[in-house]
């Protein structure tokens, strides 16, 4: 089979130099596949009462059931959909907002830039977990609300980083030349800023996704996330009440804890590896 090679690493050095990225991607791919295909491979609703409460594992229900007789494995699968869905959505929305703020700030410059950046500074001091908690106390925490709330408190850091890099790009001679020849804002963004920022965009997306998964699981663990959607944090919340009951934790607490831990670690591994790949000075 013909292997597609990374043109920068024709002899496959990438794999040897950044094993973390490969490992992280593999783990994440498995979890994403589980989330996407799980319901077809294992067709069992996490809401249906399929057996007696706390039933032990069987062939039909490999992880057994919870305290009201719902299947634990399908809870795990649907939990992956919620956690990853919210994580990726917040990563996407947050990064997009950061980009828009940073680019409009750099393109407009002047007072607009100054005011926007002071706003970013102020915004960064607000602790996201507390504010999201306050919001969900007043607004019912549907998934869409959670995505919006988490995105609302995750764009500022990226905006500052993007702006710094975009400012450097802006002072490059080839950008100056393009501006002098009357290039429009959209053209500059498409032709120069996005290509020049793409590695930061990827890293920022990974960081935001990781933080969103972490925050969502914390909220769900405290019982403050969307009760209509099973999530790993929710499983842990309910399972914790039964943690002292024999070996129940092995099939109720351990699977979501592992899934959550592996997701977060894989995202961190990818981010850490790519950061070193993009930023040679970090290689020590």
């Amino acid at each position, binding site marked *: 089979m013909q292997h597609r090679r990374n043109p920068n690493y024709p002899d496959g050095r990438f794999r040897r130099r950044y094993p973390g990225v490969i490992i992280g991607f593999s783990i994440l791919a498995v979890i994403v596949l589980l989330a996407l295909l799980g319901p077809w491979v294992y067709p069992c609703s996490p809401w249906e009462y399929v057996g007696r409460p706390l039933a032990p594992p069987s062939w039909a229900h490999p992880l057994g059931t919870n305290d009201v007789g719902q299947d634990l494995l399908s809870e795990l699968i649907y939990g992956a959909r919620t956690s990853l869905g919210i994580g990726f959505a917040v990563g996407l929305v947050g990064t997009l907002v950061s980009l828009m703020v940073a680019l409009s700030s750099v393109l407009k410059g002047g007072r607009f830039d100054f005011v926007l950046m*002071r*706003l970013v*500074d*102020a*915004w960064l*001091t*607000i*602790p996201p*977990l*507390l*504010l999201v*908690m*306050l*919001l969900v*106390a*007043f607004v019912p925490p549907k998934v869409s609300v959670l995505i919006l709330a988490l995105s609302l408190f995750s764009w500022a850091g990226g905006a500052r980083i993007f702006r710094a890099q975009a400012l450097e790009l802006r002072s490059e001679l080839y950008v100056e030349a393009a501006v002098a020849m009357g290039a429009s804002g959209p053209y500059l963004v498409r032709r120069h800023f996005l290509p020049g920022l793409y590695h930061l965009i990827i890293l920022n997306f990974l960081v935001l996704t*990781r933080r969103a998964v*972490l925050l969502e*699981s*914390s909220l769900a*663990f*405290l*019982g*403050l996330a969307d009760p209509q959607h099973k999530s790993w944090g929710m499983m*842990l919340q309910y399972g*914790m009440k039964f*943690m*002292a009951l024999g070996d129940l*934790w092995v099939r109720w*607490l351990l699977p979501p*804890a592992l899934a*959550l*831990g592996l997701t*977060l*670690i894989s*995202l*961190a591994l990818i981010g*850490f590896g790519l950061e070193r790949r993009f930023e040679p000075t970090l290689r*020590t």
Partner: protein
Amino acid sequence: MSRVAGYLLVLAFILGLNFTLPRLLPGEPLTAFVGEQELVLTPEFRQELERRYALDQPLPQQFIHYLASLLQGDLGYSFYYQAPVVKIIGPPLFWTILLCGLSFLLSTGLGVILGVELARQRERVWARAALGLALLLESLPGFLLGMGLLMLFSLKLGLFPFFGALEVAATRSSSGAFGAGMLWHMVLPLLTLMLGELPAVALLVRAGMLKVINAPFVVTARARGLGEARIKYRYQARNALLPLITRLGLRFGMLLGGAIPVEVIFAYPGAGQLLFHALVKRDYPLIQGLLLVSILAVLAGNALAEWGYRLADPRVRNQT
């Protein structure tokens, strides 16, 4: 100057949110102030309450009334606990400050030492293993670590207590036993918080130090025959000081937020747990009061970091 403006902006945002959110609730606005019992109030008492919260006046007057009562130290009245919010949050804040303050100090101190050694002995096997472990711990949420520790040490090994901050009959025991019980209950929550914070500090110090590990001024210092301890702390680790101050300032303000899941897991009677219960009970005045207190802590953390910069960096000091 713009910093102060930034702080005021954040404070104004939070105050605005605190003011607006209860008034956006569907149904009677009074619900947000007195809870569901609003339904059984007599008309006279209802009017009395509406006057007290100025709900019968237009919004601008309501806002002024809200600010005025805040300035008088009135954070509202908790309808679940049937007491003023200011009175309720005292003891839990003490426990949180004790727990988080200790974790803050210990993880900063130990984190700096660990970071310095990680950088200097980076080729050693233990340092590589510790680096991996630190990255691993840093990416896990606090409540997961807490649950793991609770399972292992309280449930399986029975070494530490399950819940609370004091022995059940603590008031009757001697002061020595009292203190021991207090420490005993604090070990696991403290460890959980530290496991979340210490790796971050160590990684930060390590990264800052590696940048100057063989810098010319370090070589010179060695040539002058200075002791290694002096070189690593006074010369090398110093390079990590500014990012460390930033991080500590941020963490200082976020202590309460980070403590919530941990306090809930270990049923530690701190402000985080109080906030959690307030959220569950929809005790809006208490939620808002706690939020306001923690935002003040955030701003204080930032101001402290700002002050730290001035102490640490002459360039910042001479700027203005």
